[in-house]
């Protein structure tokens, strides 16, 4: 294997693909979104709710390539019980990293295992795979009324 493909398929990604963390939808979700990548048929469903302490709970289901499914696993592990402000930071950082064409130096404190996807941003055809669960998250939280701007305004 070349260095490039090794950088794409980081150990962390392969590990999340083989051993997905916290897979399954949450029962009483406030918002749920099914997203599909029409070019390859990858599917991810993400469901979310906020608990009484304002912490996010996130569930997911899906089928597809290693990148899309590992990304869902990493995302759910990272965001489970996160504050809305942390979700906002992670979402922005992940999107920014995926659009960086490999130039990003992601912050592990914000993205956790998500930093492993930095190499994916060099492969235009795979960016959509990595973003799929994050797009589902975005849509699911809109449906649940979890908006960042509003939260940030009231906070600050």
């Amino acid at each position, binding site marked *: *294997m070349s260095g490039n493909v090794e950088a*794409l398929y980081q150990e962390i990604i392969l590990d999340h693909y083989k051993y997905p963390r916290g897979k399954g939808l949450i029962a009483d979700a406030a918002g749920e979104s099914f997203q599909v990548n029409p070019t*390859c048929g*990858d599917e991810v469903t993400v469901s979310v709710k906020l608990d009484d302490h304002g912490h996010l709970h996130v569930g997911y289901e899906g*089928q*597809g*390539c290693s*990148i899309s499914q590992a990304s869902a696993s990493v995302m759910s592990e990272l965001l489970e019980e996160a504050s809305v402000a942390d979700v906002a930071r992670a979402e922005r950082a992940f999107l920014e990293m995926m659009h960086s064409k490999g130039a990003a130096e992601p912050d592990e404190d914000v993205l956790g295992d998500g930093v492993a996807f930095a190499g994916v941003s060099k*492969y235009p055809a795979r960016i959509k795979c990595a973003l799929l669960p994050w797009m589902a998250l975005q849509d699911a939280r809109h449906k649940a009324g979890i908006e960042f701007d509003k939260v940030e305004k009231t906070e600050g």
Partner: protein
Amino acid sequence: MAPALDVQRVRKDFPILARTVRGDKPLVYLDSAATSQKPVAVLDAEREFYETSNAAVHRGAHQLAEEATDAYEGARAAIARFVGASPSDIVFTKNATEGLNLAAYAFSNATAKAQHGSRVDPRFILGPQDSVVVTEMEHHANLIPWQELCAKTGAQLRWIGVTDEGYLNLDELDVIDETTKVVSVVHQSNILGTINPVDLLMARAHEFGAVGVVDACQSIPHMPVDVPALGADLVTWSGHKMLGPTGIGLVWGNQEVLEAMPPFLTGGSMIETVYMDHSTFAPPPQRFEAGVPMVAQAVGLGAAVRYLEDVGMDTVAQHEHDITGYALDRLEQLPGVRIIGPASNVSRGSAISFVVDGIHPHDVGQILDDRGVAVRVGHHCAWPTCRRFNVPATTRLSTYIYNDNSDIDAAVEGIVAAQEFFGVA
């Protein structure tokens, strides 16, 4: 027996095959079912047209306009000869998808016109009592236009299913019945590789007075096809899959049917007379070629068919049959690899879809790409066919005249490497 193909000589005509990819890997191009590469003769023909004769065709009183028209109509004649047809029955479109829409819109346009009192051929009028028949192995281009037609007219969409082996289930031919107004089927499946008995399907369509349409995108580039002999009313295919440029497709029509069809795209070039409140239309094929056409692309495609004629389509077909047999054998020997479509080299072309246990096709394709091997992954614009086989997607390798068994070996080595990398070997 057709003469053997000298692949090494052919490859010299395709400059792109000499490049490397992903660093220093020689390109192994196994994605010709998506689009073929282009020989220098095609590139030269386009360039020469632009350098010497470029003008708008069928208009203008100058010498260049004459030369451009000759080049455009000469290409039509060359393509017609290549498929055993008359030039007046060949329509240029932008691609095969447009060709299939041209067919589907004949029905919706005729139906809408009839509702407002225009005189149209009743064969093209559809209503809720009518049916449209396709198969379960259609490319989206030969499915969605018919879905839309049914949504607009209330007609029922029916389809002939596919067996586990990847062939059409001919026990279901009776979905074509007295309600059927159009039968539109693929000659050779782009995902399964299956070659369908279109003569049988067209005969059944005609038994009930239905219009018969054939999508020949994957057959005409790869084997000798006498288009009028398919027994269809309309046959469509693309130029870019047969060594020609992108942006050019073809519709062959039975002359009587073309004459009965209302136009699809309207505007300049396709008219006979124009008044402020109404117009009359030119006879086919001009009726279906609105606007300034794709002249350089037609000229390029003319050069492509001459190239294929020089090689000989019997030789092309034999070469691809041999390489397909070799590929099927090698894939079958790989543990954990399952072919989606006919596993035997009978009534099938050179597009071979497969799945690898434990590895998503996207990941198989990525590892192959890392080794310079270009294949297609995904649902191949045949999502319902994937569902039929309970797979989300497949990896597909497809060959042409510039491939040989060493390319298949490279793909097989890549699959084994993917199995090792993902720990499923």
